[in-house]
């Protein structure tokens, strides 16, 4: 009996996660969110299916399905990218604004538990949205070409991206006092990942790399582009279609299944960055950073 109790206490659900889920899933709000999300996704799918079929009304070929699949994957990716930072950017700063953070910190709950509880409570909503979209995605199984494994790969990629964007939100939420500032900075960071990396790559390749190697064209992927989740997704979907070996623009080349793919590097980077951001957030949340401040004091003295 004692052993069972010990095991139970070790594997208890994070109290913050449990509370957040209770609050977020209560009432009609969550059901309406899921309903509206799937309605938008389904309407967009029907819309794009109609457009692709306009050349050949009444019949669907594998090319149409590939386009519909790519569109649905991109649409869901866009929605997740928009939602994830918003769900987490107010997680800690909101507690601070509501004056509930001090009480939470005065309990025995570890700072890491508070951070992960908040992150996974927010992500659970996204995961529910992703899972609930399976029926809409199942339209592609009607015509073949795309299998369950490919769909799972994409869904796992979504979850990694959601964790990354969620961690960015949590990070700024911990370091900023106000939720508004945390929201702005989270989206700014996301915009940098999605667009900033493209602009920097284009300018750097055109202005620095290209002039230095006039005779040989630059066909590699510039290192910064490995951090761009959108190009990670493009790389993943291209691999699924068996395409590769071409250049999207100077600085981004998709390999043809040889070596490590851009999306794989992107996933590794995303996971690494999430761990670092969450760890920094947990450290920041710890009000008695004795060891750290002592270390800093010593460094300052030196």
């Amino acid at each position, binding site marked *: 009996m004692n052993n069972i109790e010990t095991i139970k206490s070790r594997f*208890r659900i994070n109290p913050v996660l449990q509370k957040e889920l209770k609050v977020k899933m209560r009432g009609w709000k969550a059901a309406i969110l899921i309903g509206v999300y799937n309605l938008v996704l389904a309407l967009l799918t029907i819309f794009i299916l109609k457009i692709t079929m306009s050349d050949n009304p009444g019949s669907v070929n594998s090319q149409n399905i590939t386009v519909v699949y790519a569109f649905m994957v991109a649409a869901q990716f866009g929605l997740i990218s928009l939602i994830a930072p918003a769900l987490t950017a107010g997680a800690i700063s909101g507690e601070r604004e509501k004056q509930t953070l001090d009480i939470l910190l005065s309990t025995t709950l570890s700072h890491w538990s508070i951070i992960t509880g908040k992150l996974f409570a927010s992500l659970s909503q996204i995961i529910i949205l992703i899972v609930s979209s399976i029926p809409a995605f199942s339209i592609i199984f009607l015509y073949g070409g795309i299998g369950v494994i490919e769909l799972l790969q994409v869904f796992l990629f979504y979850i990694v991206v959601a964790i990354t964007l969620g961690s960015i939100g949590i990070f700024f939420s911990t370091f900023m006092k106000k939720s508004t500032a945390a929201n702005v900075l989270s989206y700014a960071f996301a915009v940098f990942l999605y667009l900033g990396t493209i602009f920097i790559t284009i300018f750097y390749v055109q202005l620095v790399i290209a002039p230095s190697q006039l005779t040989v064209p630059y066909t590699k992927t510039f290192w910064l582009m490995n951090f761009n989740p959108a190009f990670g997704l493009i790389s993943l979907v291209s691999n699924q279609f068996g395409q590769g070996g071409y250049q999207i623009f100077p600085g981004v080349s998709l390999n043809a299944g040889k070596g490590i793919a851009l999306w794989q590097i992107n996933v590794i980077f995303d996971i690494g960055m999430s761990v670092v951001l969450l760890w920094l957030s947990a450290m920041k949340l710890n009000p*008695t*950073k*004795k060891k750290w401040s002592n270390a800093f004091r010593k460094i300052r003295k030196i």
Partner: protein
Amino acid sequence: MLKIENLCKCYGKFQAVNELNLHIPKGEIFGFVGPNGAGKTTTMRIICGLLEATSGKVFADGIDVINKPKELKSKIGYMPDFFGVYDDLKVMEYLEFYASIYNIRGLEREKVCKDLLELVDLSEKKDFYVDSLSRGMKQRLCLARSLVHNPDLLILDEPASGMDPRARLEMKEILKTLRSMGKTILVSSHILPELAELCTSIGIIDKGRVIMSGTVEEITKKVYHTQTIRIKVIAKVEETIRLLQEYPDVDGANVTSENTVEASFKGDDMFLNSLLLRLIQSNIPVVAFNQLSGNLEDIFMMVTATEEIK
């Protein structure tokens, strides 16, 4: 129960807590009195592990607060001066959430939460959303929350601020009950008469230092050097005054209202006993004989003003 040694906290060049020393024995209600910005909240936050001390030591039940914060947090219940509640939870759910943090589960959790709601007189509100509670009720709920893990030491920062007189009285009764349960309570408040009535001892803090501590009587003695006795008689007022003036330890005696004499004196309980005996032996019809305890507000003003001059 709580021992603070040479505690210091600096914010840049500003010293919020300056070599603060304090010792609170088990089972006491210790009142922390001081002007705004004196360092009360800072000290309390350090004790609760919410703020890092610049230097010094804090021990709660023998546990080093600074080096073992997690161990300590299971022994301390903290109620901050400004706090929020989760408005979207029900009263019972609110307590259950905090109980789950301390790994209190199942039937035990339910029992603990119900008992606490009974203690703070919120049993009838258990299925109400926290949002619908009045300020006083929220404060009582927050107190119940701080007790969910049955801590030995309670740190209450202005627990009755913003409450109406009835709610303050109820809070005072709850604190007395908690003391009878063996809890040690460190409480800060600006409502000094209530604090004087409630607390077993008081610490006056100013500019980050405890400038005086002890029971209200002890502090009165230290501040005023003399004490006051009030005697009510049915008759023979003049004779009472004459008799009092015979004592060299009595500084002065005068009539304050009809048949009531007040006299300031230097002396202890033995002196008072002999004085009472003498009055009765002299056939003076005494109906009331009581030593006036010092007015904490006056003491506070006097002590903090002296510090200001220094």
